[in-house]
């Protein structure tokens, strides 16, 4: 048990360091790139103004607002301090709403959509991949190329295709929004049904994309495990195939969990674009609107939150993996001994 504490302690520290660095990147990258977002904003605001002293005033105001008149390290510290107080700045495009306010509205929708989608997609993909590996003959020959094709499609591609088929051509499901435009959020059954209906298309497109990639990986891992020595040995001791299949898939799942951790970042990225396509009121849409509107604080806030979410998800997966895989436990006990 002691080994465990050390292991997890180390992981936690590592993630904290990563968070700090992500924070710094989030802050400094835009400021270090050629092109000054604030200057762009100021020039947008002063476009059409001819009086140079007026222009100066506006630019000055913007500078102060962003604390650009102070040095970079100072700005960073102010930023961090504000952040811990729950202040991520004020949005430009939705002035005077604060960034925190906007994000806290949309983040609920995003998590409610993406978390189940990723989990369901992962489970479904692994099950299908396992079946394909086990049956091989007919199912595999058809399923494999199909899954490869799906996984080659960009996330938004799947979203658009589903939108096209089910939303526009067959008109079965609504294509935009989190709930009907004509409804107000109330605790009514009608509202709930509307939410569920609007949930379908974004959810299933995300699931399908994940399924494509996961099933291929799982299939390869399963084939590899199915040829392992312990499978042959178990058979020769008379153990039934069903039990052996259980062993194989338990073992094949483990690298899949690691794979999940590694691809979380990409998945979130793809899902953001999918959200945007469906105008689903999550962080994705907020981010896109912020980009289009040049709303710098909002963009910064969104990317930060997304990074934090991905980091947390990664940490959770790694913790889970440590519990599930006895090899990790063994390695820990060895080093603790």
């Amino acid at each position: 048990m002691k080994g465990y504490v050390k292991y997890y302690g180390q992981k936690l520290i590592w993630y904290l360091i990563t968070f700090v660095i992500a924070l710094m990147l989030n802050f400094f990258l835009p400021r270090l790139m050629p092109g000054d977002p604030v200057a762009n904003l100021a020039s947008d605001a002063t476009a059409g103004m001819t009086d140079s002293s007026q222009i100066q005033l506006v630019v000055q105001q913007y500078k102060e607002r962003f604390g650009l008149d102070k040095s970079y390290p100072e700005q960073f510290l102010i930023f961090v301090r504000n952040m811990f107080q729950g202040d991520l700045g004020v949005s430009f495009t939705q002035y005077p709403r604060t960034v925190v306010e906007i994000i806290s509205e949309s983040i609920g929708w995003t998590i409610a959509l993406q978390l189940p989608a990723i989990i369901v997609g992962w489970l479904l993909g692994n099950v299908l991949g396992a079946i394909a590996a086990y049956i091989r003959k007919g199912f595999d020959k058809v399923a494999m190329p199909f899954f490869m094709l799906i996984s080659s499609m960009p996330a938004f591609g799947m979203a658009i295709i589903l939108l096209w088929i089910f939303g526009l051509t067959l008109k079965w499901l609504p294509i935009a929004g989190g709930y009907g435009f004509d409804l107000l959020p109330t605790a009514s059954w009608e509202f709930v049904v509307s939410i569920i209906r609007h949930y379908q298309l974004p959810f299933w497109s995300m699931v399908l994309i994940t399924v494509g990639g996961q099933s291929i990986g799982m299939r390869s891992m399963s084939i590899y495990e199915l040829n392992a020595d312990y499978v042959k040995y178990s058979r020769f001791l008379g153990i039934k195939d069903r039990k052996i299949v259980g062993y194989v898939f338990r073992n094949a799942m483990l690298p899949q969990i690691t794979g999940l951790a590694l691809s979380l970042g990409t998945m979130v990225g793809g899902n953001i674009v999918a959200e945007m396509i469906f105008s689903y009121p999550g962080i994705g849409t907020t981010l896109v609107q912020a980009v289009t509107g040049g709303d710098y604080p909002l963009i910064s806030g969104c990317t930060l939150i997304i990074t934090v979410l991905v980091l947390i998800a990664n940490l959770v997966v790694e913790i889970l993996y440590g519990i599930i895989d006895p090899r990790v436990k063994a390695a820990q006990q060895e080093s603790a001994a």
Partner: protein
Amino acid sequence: MARVMLEVNNLKTKYITRYKESVYAVDGVSLKIEEGKSLGIAGESGCGKSTLALSLMGYYFAPLHYMSGEIIIDGKNISDMKPDEVRKNILGNEIAYIPQAAMNALNPTQKIIRFVEDVIHAHDPKVSKKDIYDMAVKRFENLGLPPEVLQKHAVELSGGMKQRTVIAISTILSPKVLIADEPSSALDVTSQKMVIKMMRELMEKGFIKSMIFITHELPLLYNVTDDIMVMYAGQIVERGSAKEMVFDPVHPYSKGLMGSIIVPEEGTKDVKLEAIPGTPPNLKNPPAGCRFFARCKYSIPECAFGDRSERKFDNDRMHRCIHDVEYLEEAYGRNEQK
């Protein structure tokens, strides 16, 4: 008259490659083992020893296919049985197998005791977990293995320990025949000794009734088994008691094999080592006539034609050479004098 534990009559099995070609890996093997006896099988790499081991189990996984022949375990002809029956009733409790490189034979993420439970439940689903645990502890202690091993995962054990665990698990149902495929080849010398000791104990304590020990290490067989068979290119070329085979081999191949061993004992410093030149034939198209013909020092033109069938001599010995025993012994005598 001792009970015959394992009787094999003219067993033939083959591999079918992905290009649909047949490789006749086991081409007519017959043998008999009595209760309480052990048989060693020796031969160079690729002669078909491991394939023979798999074939003897009576259950065939692609690409290995059964062609013809009989396998009779303690009077039961398993070649006539349906594969499902074999799997349920024979594998594990009548005949058991210890694979080569047994270290990888254990599921790395499973506790040993769970695996034991699975093995026993596969044959008798009603046994309780507690009974299984008690039995396992007793058996392990009996064989000199610490019972704590049962609570560990395979990944936490050393190589030697894994091997001995595998041996213990393979024999936990006290099978009549145990087939061990190179059980000690991948281990250090100390572990090797422990493995051999364990296998002897298995026989002595009656946990197994007979054993087949497959290896390429000939000196080992002398210390472990009662009889020895030499295999070459899918066929048995000679059989006899351990002593007879080591000190008085008849078939030119066995002779060559024994002659290529370094024996670290007194007086052997001046004995010349002889290697057998060439490589074994391709079993996709087994040559007509004697398979050793191309590499044999004592061959005559007739060796290349006609089937080389088994020839019995003395009590229980057999060889496949075209020459008579006397001719060969004389030829060997001349050779040694040179």
